[in-house]
């Protein structure tokens, strides 16, 4: 039972890494909190549902489409709202409100277009029956989703550490002022990171019907809370720390379900607070906080 819970938690955690990854990238680069992150994830799920219903498109292909389309949608959206936001006095806090407004709009439009009933994609699409791992049976669709998540993490790693644009992105993450002073085109770097953040949320959405059973237009805020726990426990602003956050989140959630099930959802919140109080910059945080 313990081994099964731990292993499931690990797989579950990999998926939640992907759920938090885009949010963390956006925060890391722009220091804004995208409160509509969960809603972009929800849109990814609806896209996959729609593509599957119309063309029987495999979720893996849907994920590729969603990544491209969402990233491209993110670019004009960035230029429409973020530069104005960054110019404001307290952009970090204002972003919460701005993206709350956007979140409301997305949820409203999706409710009108698709209705409020639960939606999902059959699990057999990703292979039927369980997979055996270390003698424990795990659903194929979980293992598949976890695999995609790890691939996405690898993609972000390659982008940040192996490309020139990634290097510039990291420079902006370290210090926006210095990056601008050295002549980096701030908005180009930020816009791409923003688009990528939405694209990652979209991919996570494609696999949400398999990991969460079903989706409705209202799941956004709930997803955000889980994503917050993951990225804060990892390290806020450090996209790769998200992996650690995801694992801690997944494993502890599954252990709680096993031993204290009715309190299971309390744990991520307590974990988040505890980590912040002990290590205010997250488990992998190195920077010293101000004041």
């Amino acid at each position, binding site marked *: *039972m313990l081994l*099964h*819970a731990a292993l*499931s*938690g690990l797989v*579950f955690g990999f998926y939640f890494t992907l759920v938090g990854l885009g949010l963390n990238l956006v925060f890391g680069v722009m220091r804004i909190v995208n409160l509509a992150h969960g809603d972009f994830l929800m849109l990814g799920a609806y896209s996959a549902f729609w593509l599957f219903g119309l063309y029987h498109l495999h979720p893996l292909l849907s994920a590729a489409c969603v990544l491209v389309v969402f990233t491209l949608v993110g670019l004009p959206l960035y230029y429409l709202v973020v530069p104005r936001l960054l110019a404001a006095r307290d952009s970090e806090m204002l972003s919460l409100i701005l993206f709350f407004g956007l979140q409301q709009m997305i*949820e*409203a439009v999706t*409710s009108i277009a*698709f*209705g*409020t*009933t*639960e*939606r*999902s994609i*059959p*699990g057999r699409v990703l292979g039927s*029956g*369980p997979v055996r791992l270390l003698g424990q*049976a*795990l*659903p*194929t*669709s*979980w293992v598949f989703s976890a695999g995609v998540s790890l691939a996405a993490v690898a993609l972000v790693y390659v982008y940040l550490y192996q490309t020139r644009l990634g290097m510039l992105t990291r420079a902006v993450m370290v210090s926006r002022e210095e990056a601008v002073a050295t002549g980096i085109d701030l908005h180009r770097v930020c816009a791409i990171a923003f688009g990528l953040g939405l694209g990652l949320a979209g991919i996570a959405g494609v696999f949400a019907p398999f*990991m*969460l*059973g*079903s989706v*409705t*237009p*209202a799941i956004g805020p*709930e997803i955000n809370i889980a994503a917050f726990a993951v990225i804060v426990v990892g390290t806020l602003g450090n996209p790769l720390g998200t992996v650690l956050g995801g694992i801690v989140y997944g494993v502890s959630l*599954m252990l709680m*379900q*096993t031993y204290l*099930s*009715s309190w*299971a*959802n309390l744990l991520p919140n307590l974990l988040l607070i505890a980590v912040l109080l002990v290590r205010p910059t997250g488990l992998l945080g190195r920077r010293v906080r101000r004041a």
Partner: protein
Amino acid sequence: MSRKAMLCLIAALACGPAAHAQQAAPAEIKIGHVHAASGAYASISMPVYDGLKLWIDQQNAGGGAMVKPFGKKIPLKLISYDDQSNPGTAATLINQLITQDKVDILVADSGSVLTAVAVPIAREHKMLLFNPTGTGAPFFTKDNPYIALLADPASTIWPKYLAGFLTTDGVKDGLKRLAILYATNDFTTTQANALRGFVKQSGAAIDIVYDQGVPTNTSNYGVLINNIAAAKPDAVVELGYVGNDIAFLRNLQDAGQKFKFLFALYPGVETDEVLKNVGAQAMDHVFTYVTSQAIEYKPNVGMTLDQFREAFEKSYKGQGVEFGFNAIAGYHSGLMIGQALADTDSLQQLDLRRALFAQSGKVTTLDGTFELDDTGAQIGEITPLGQIIADPKGAVRNVVVFPHELAAGKPLYE
């Protein structure tokens, strides 16, 4: 306010001396309602709203609803606001309907959380709250005459036949080890408690080997299923909201886990919605409640099940609102409003109440027999135990297996 005053004035002038001989009939009967078009409760609220709207549209197509004190049909006007699943907004909108729109009939939103805030407001303004599906026990007290639960049996009644089966036929068939998994909200926790109570009370030789609550927003049951299996139960009862049940049944199928007897709540409540999300195979042989969508009652008021289903699907095709128990509940609420209007002595709220309570035990609609206890809780409608049988084409039927007098089939164990 001014338009209404003007209408009154015009009506008074037109009717002249006749007007004070008989009480003037209003130009329309205003039905006030709140619904959640978005947010957490939208998926249970929208079908109720659509079902109610369908009834009103039908009445108006025939010239309106018969209102006894005026001896004629009067058109109905639905005023329905969107509370966005926000209880605070629901409360102010209910008050708006009462104090500003001055509605004649007040209908609560679906589900207990959004209904709760309306209960004291309706009572304070002495408005009868027509409550479609808010089953919360604290709403129904002997000292509050201003509430009636129309469509949904009280939560404690739901598991009656499930428990009846488990403690008699079930034990005989070797279902001795019982596992209960429930979502920790009002609706399903009450049922879990009632089930546990029924089982203990019966003295049947049943061991409860697993009994856990999980938060209602649980969306992943893989580990829980593994833990239940480790307790080696013969019978598993899973009680959740529709999203919980979908996740549970999908995870069960993904894990390739089978239990001899498996009960889940929503396959019988929102059958189409669950079917679309988990598929016929995952539902096959699952035990569930039999709600009005799977029993052909012989209504003496309103459409039959098939007629209503056809009308509902025609009206709301492609709008993402699935036919199911909640749609029936909305339509049935309309029917009961119609019955009350046709039998009341005036539009006074207590007269409406008398008229509505007078229907108790006499009216059968597609939702079953309407019966209220003296606190206004619904006790007439019942939920027998059924079993889902899938055919190879991917359609499902919900076959009653208990109680014996209603049974249409024998239980099949895995």
